[in-house]
């Protein structure tokens, strides 16, 4: 007979704050939870909410590591909580909301607004005034590898981990961050987007753009989708330098 191991008691420290409560100040609160098999932070947090404190605020949507809603600092590092197994962590776990984003309460942050501003600013959509859409005609062809490459960058889930993991943007919030640069790299790669290099330069050819990046690579190391951020930022940097040299 195999011995049943007694489950660990996890001590979950959560940085709590309700900005709508004038009397509240940011403070740590610790909950003790008995660990179970295959337990993720999604299960932990719901258990806390259901059995310990029903006012605890956090965001999950897909709970499958797909939608990017549940990013938070787990022991100081930004990551997706729903797919973080407790078995991979120490029994003392601290959770805090991602910095920089507007706080809704406890672990819940308003990434949506931030990302929307970013997308609007960088105009992250296909710019094509030349080709009218004709829904009855065959679609435009695209090299299979190119389609794969575009998708590779399109996989970003706007979770904001790279933003929270980037020292540069912490100091200088005007910086577009890896998420923004990656989006530009994605559209630059896409032949359907007819923007010129000079137009891209206008968007990211300054200290708030690619030249602001100090290559700290926090972004690359925390991105839950393993996007090739370092490589793409380097690519954009080369391209922007070339553009600046060609353009008179």
């Amino acid at each position, binding site marked *: 007979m195999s011995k049943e191991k007694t489950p660990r008691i996890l001590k979950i420290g959560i940085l709590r704050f309700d900005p709508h409560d004038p009397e509240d100040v940011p403070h740590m609160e610790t909950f003790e939870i008995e660990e179970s098999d295959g337990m993720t932070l999604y299960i932990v947090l719901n258990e806390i909410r259901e059995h310990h404190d029903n006012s605890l605020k956090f965001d999950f949507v897909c709970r499958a590591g797909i939608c990017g809603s549940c990013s938070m600092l787990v022991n100081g590092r930004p990551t997706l909580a729903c*797919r973080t197994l407790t078995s991979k962590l120490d029994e003392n776990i601290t959770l805090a909301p991602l910095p920089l984003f507007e706080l809704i309460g406890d672990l819940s942050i308003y990434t949506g607004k931030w990302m929307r501003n970013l997308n609007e600013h960088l105009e992250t959509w296909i710019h094509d005034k030349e080709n009218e859409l004709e829904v009855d005609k065959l679609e*435009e062809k695209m090299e*299979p590898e190119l389609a794969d490459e575009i998708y590779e960058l399109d996989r970003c889930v*706007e979770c904001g981990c790279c933003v929270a993991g980037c020292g540069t943007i912490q100091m200088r919030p005007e910086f577009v961050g890896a998420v923004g640069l990656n989006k530009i790299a994605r559209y630059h790669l896409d032949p359907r987007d007819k923007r010129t290099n000079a137009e891209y330069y206008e968007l990211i050819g300054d200290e708030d753009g690619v030249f602001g990046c100090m290559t700290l690579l926090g972004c690359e190391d925390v991105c839950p989708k393993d996007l090739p951020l370092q490589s793409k930022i380097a690519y954009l940097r080369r391209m922007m330098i070339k553009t600046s040299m060609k353009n008179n």
Partner: protein
Amino acid sequence: MKVIYTDVLIIGGGLAGLRVATGVKERGHDAVVLTLVPPKRSHSSAAQGGMQASLANSHMGEGDNEDVHFSDTIKGSDWGADQEVARMFTHCAPKAIRELAHWGVPWSRVQRGDRKAIINAESVTITEKDEAHGLITARDFGGTKKWRTCYTSDGTGHSMLYAMDNKAHEDKIDIHERLEAISLIHEKGRCYGAVARNLMNGELVAYVSKATTIATGGYGRIYSVSTNAIICQGMGQALALESGVATLGNMEAIQFHPTAIVPVGILTTEGCRGDGGLLLDKDGYRFMPDYEPDKKELASRDVVSRRMTEHMRKGKGVKSKYGDHLWLDITILGREHIEKNLREVKEICENFLGIDPAVDWIPVRPTQHYSMGGIRTKYTGESQTLKGLYSCGEAACWDMHGFNRLGGNSVSETVVAGMLVAEYISDFLDSSDSNLEIHTSKIESFVKKEQDKLDALLSKENGEDAYILRRRMEEIMMDKVGIFRNETDLKEAVDELQELLKRSKNIEVFRSKSRAANPALVNAYRTQRMIKVALTCALGAYLRKESRGAHSREDFPKRDDENWLKRTITSWPDENQTMPSVSYEEINISTMEMPPGFRGYGKDLTKHHPMTKVRQDSVDAVVEKLKAEGKDRFEIQDALMPFMDKLPKKYRGINARLGENI
């Protein structure tokens, strides 16, 4: 009181909602989109497998067209679908996918020349045509004659939703995030918008609009284990239900997906089996060919789910402390294929199971997945009973899925319905019918009513704990309204749910009393609504004494066209009712292009309707005659069941394919 006026209010920022928004905007109308979460986090993003559209680019899709897609869809629905709607859908799906390609979805492409694929556990070589190189490719999915499911690696929904949301940015559509619609504003059978609650600061806002669209997705979360996102709680269906006027259709039609991982219920896409993955039992034995020698693992979802359950009931399941399960084996596809085309699956296996699917088998079992039922609409997407209220996407029962939807037909529905409904709404807005004729005091009374309800929840004492009620409801649905259903269980389910409903009127929000962001309050009012939705589902299932598609009664194993070729319609006319009102909508055989037949799984147990034969004969006669006259497939189709005139003019064009209409 904060009031926001707009032409079109769209509740839901998933694929369906966003497509309506861009559509009406293009026609020059204002739109506001309300959503619980940033649109890009809507559940549409979780669709991994693909979108069906009969492009026929890839070798295995050659010969595909609207007709084949239509026939697959109708068979899949077990003849429960509205055939005109299904025709409109299959006609427009290629247009929708091409539109999305134009807006930035990369779509995986055809690579000319030879490639290896796994079909029926054997490696075969497929040769793609030169002229197809670079066009959108497709994979195999359950229940389809041709390889028709177009995809972007395994992030189809994600790439579609991102393209749609970016398009919405381009079109400068107002998107109000974390705003939850909690009741419809309506008067004299006409809908004028909705009251919404800001989930960040608790403020109630009245959105007053000429047309209102519910595109809030499904209601999977009334079950305790579901592949759905946790926000798929059926709040859109509840909105319609609580209006007392709008109706719901076929709420008992619930799809179970064969392969969700155990225990958490996260989906591994049908693409796993489509690409050649196998189902194995505790002995590592491939059992599906014994049950379905023809389609095997790729039979329709409802069929595979039932076969798996049957097989586990025979004691062939793998025992685990979370109950029995079976294995999904994709190791035969090879690491390279998995890492390229099934990467999301790989990530899920690594992160939630700690296994490597290129080496290990995946523990799976059938799990609640899709809601065929929803807000009953006309083909225009408008509610049959509440004017000015529209619905589309998974939230609606537009009814192209009947009692079982095919994999890949759902994201396809969202964008097709979205683009069509946007046109019908715009037509409505362009007519004088759409004038706003509601008094402010009426709007105020709707807001006040919601405010009072919230206050009551917060001030109640010695009440019920919402979590307890909700967990119980979820269990009942899981245990008694599951894959196989029977009279006893369903009766118990209905009774107990009714009891829960009564208790839910007495819910108290313990401790957490904030009026702003307050998850306990949210859970309280949603639980009340979810129980109502669960009741419509359980009651519909209890009353339907036949088996059709995903609705499978052990005590009535036959499909009964004579008595049950009809849709269950539920509504809640009086707030104080503790059970929904039920009526039925006949499905007319005499206008069908494809009269009811045998789906081709197991034995044909159907109790046919006398009308079926009559209609079949007349269809056959027409086809034969027109064929002899040398008419083409469009003319023949038109003679059988004309639908073109129902489509907006801009979408009537004939689709080009390689070798057809280029």
